[in-house]
């Protein structure tokens, strides 16, 4: 291996980590008015949420792109957020606003996560049976299921009692500014569980980059690996969606930046860099928007927009080669 590379990868990692820590500190301390105890809890909770979301999105996107062998796609297109919305809507429609409101949101969240993993597993198995290695098919189906679920939710919302709809609005439409703090703990736990599952498999995932057949030829159980990692992706995406709502292009932005910085695409290096970049973007971005530009509530929109433009640029560049 040429002498430069391990050194430059390490440099990148150190730089990104430092920036991440810096932005976290700045988020907590910049422009702080009022008693520290209040600030610590208030900002601390939001910081925790942002970091968890950054982690979840970065990891799920990188893993998803490895699974699909495609850097243009993100798990957000799989319609998980739409499924989430549909589950919430059906629950409220079935139990009524009061009934649904009585359930502990954490329990609800865990059950919904399980349901999402279950359903994504079904989708996965359905499509991968019979040597269907057609990944665009899987993704497009996910997208269409998403459209289906969104329309069904729309339909149910029209049909339900307006009071129930108000309850739904309160629960189902999370954003970067409306985070349910009780969910952060569960989401963080899920993120840790995901890490534990994925960590020993990083080497195998590296091999997957060569394509399914070659990976199988080298002794990787691609079917099993893909199923497990797909489930992990589903869990992470549902965690982040439950916390802050859908984020379509953010993961794309962060993942591709990470590949730019770490061209060897080794997961052990790419993942930490992606996570660091995600934290810097979210925490730093929120701080910038809130305290410098005064667009406090626009984080998801801005990020989506920037991410989307990046997506276009990537597409253009990939074609030129």
């Amino acid at each position, binding site marked *: 291996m040429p002498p430069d590379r391990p050194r430059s990868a390490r440099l990148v990692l150190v730089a990104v980590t430092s920036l991440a820590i810096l932005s976290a500190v700045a988020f907590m301390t910049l422009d702080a008015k009022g008693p520290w105890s209040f600030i610590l809890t208030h900002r601390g909770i939001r910081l925790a949420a942002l970091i968890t979301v950054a982690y979840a999105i970065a990891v799920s996107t990188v893993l998803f792109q490895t699974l699909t062998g495609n850097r243009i796609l993100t798990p957000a297109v799989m319609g998980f957020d739409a499924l989430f919305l549909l589950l919430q809507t059906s629950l409220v429609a079935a139990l009524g606003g009061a009934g649904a409101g009585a359930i502990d949101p954490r329990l609800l969240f865990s059950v919904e996560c399980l349901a999402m993993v279950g359903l994504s597993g079904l989708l996965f198995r359905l499509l991968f049976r019979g040597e269907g290695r057609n990944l665009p098919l899987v993704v497009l189906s996910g997208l269409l*299921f998403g459209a289906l679920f969104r329309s069904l939710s729309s339909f149910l919302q029209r049909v339900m009692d307006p009071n129930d709809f108000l309850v739904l609005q309160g629960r189902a439409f999370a954003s970067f500014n409306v985070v349910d703090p009780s969910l952060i703990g569960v989401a963080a736990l899920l993120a840790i569980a995901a890490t534990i599952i994925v960590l020993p498999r990083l080497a195998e995932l590296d091999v997957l980059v060569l394509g399914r057949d070659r990976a199988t030829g080298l002794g990787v159980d691609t079917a099993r690996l893909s199923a497990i990692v797909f489930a992990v992706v589903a869990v992470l995406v549902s965690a982040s969606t439950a916390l802050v709502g859908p984020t379509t292009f953010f993961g794309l932005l962060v993942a591709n930046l990470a590949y730019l910085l770490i061209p060897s695409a080794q997961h052990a290096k790419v993942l930490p860099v992606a996570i660091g970049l995600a934290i810097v973007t979210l925490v730093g971005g929120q701080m910038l928007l809130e305290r410098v530009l005064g667009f406090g509530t626009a984080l998801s929109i801005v990020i989506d927009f920037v991410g*989307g433009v990046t997506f276009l640029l990537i597409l253009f560049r990939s074609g030129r080669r």
Partner: protein
Amino acid sequence: MTVPPRPLLLGTLLIATALLAAASLLIGGGYAWSDVLTLEGDGALILAASRVPRTLALLLSGAGLAVSGILMQMIARNRFVEPSTAGTVESASLGILLTLLLMPGAPVVVRMLVAALVALAGSALFLMLIARLPLGSVLMVPLVGIMLGGIFDAATSFLAYRFDLLQSLGAFGSGDFSIVLRGRYEFLWIIAGLVAVAYATATRFTILGMGEAVAVGVGLDYRRLVVFGLIIVSVVTAAVVVTVGAVPFVGLIVPNVVSLFLGDDLRRSLPVVATGGAVLVLASDVVGRIVIAPYEIPVGTIMGVVGSLGFLTLIFWRRGHAA
């Protein structure tokens, strides 16, 4: 499967259209039969001001969107392309928002024109993007289109947020024909003209669908024809979005189903596609008005459900074939 001859198919569809149109005119009641027959009184008013325009709007939109779909499929050479999977609808919405921002007092015509222009640009961008995809990635094409649509959506949301227009945004989100009134929908008539033009030039588009090499070889001006087709699609999309909002998947389902029976010769299939589109949208509206009467479910939502299920069926059906 024996293919029913075209006249039979067309005839069936026309009858279906007539029946559905009648249903559309009559559902909701609100007047006495005598009013209808004498063309006087409240009944006649409701008919003239609301029901007839609504039914006509449905017919025109359905036909226009279906034809737009098949034209785009010829241009992009991909079965799954249509205004809502190529970013056309979303760029039209962006165009409308821009007019709200920059020319708030502008008449509807101007709104429509700007929307058509932005839709044209958006569709052109889409074509440029898919030209860069590796060959054979059939399903990547609509994926890219949907994601492109998402970007335009994000841009629109951002501008709406920034300039406090988020509420107006909701208004042209999902296609809703309940707002159609006499005096508010007439622009849709341009669709009739455009469909006629498309029919007249149908053979050229069929050739276009075989690729640039073939088209040029036969002596067609490829670029001009593509732009021409995109203009038709953009104007139709803009007209529909401005008048009633987004109605997804019509241009996807109808052409694909029709091509199963009649193949891809546009001259033969265009009338059937147009009528099929009208039937689909009419039927969706009728269902939407019956299911939770007296409340309505917008056509956009119904097409969202029907269309996504249909699309899923299509891609699984065609999975065995090389699309």
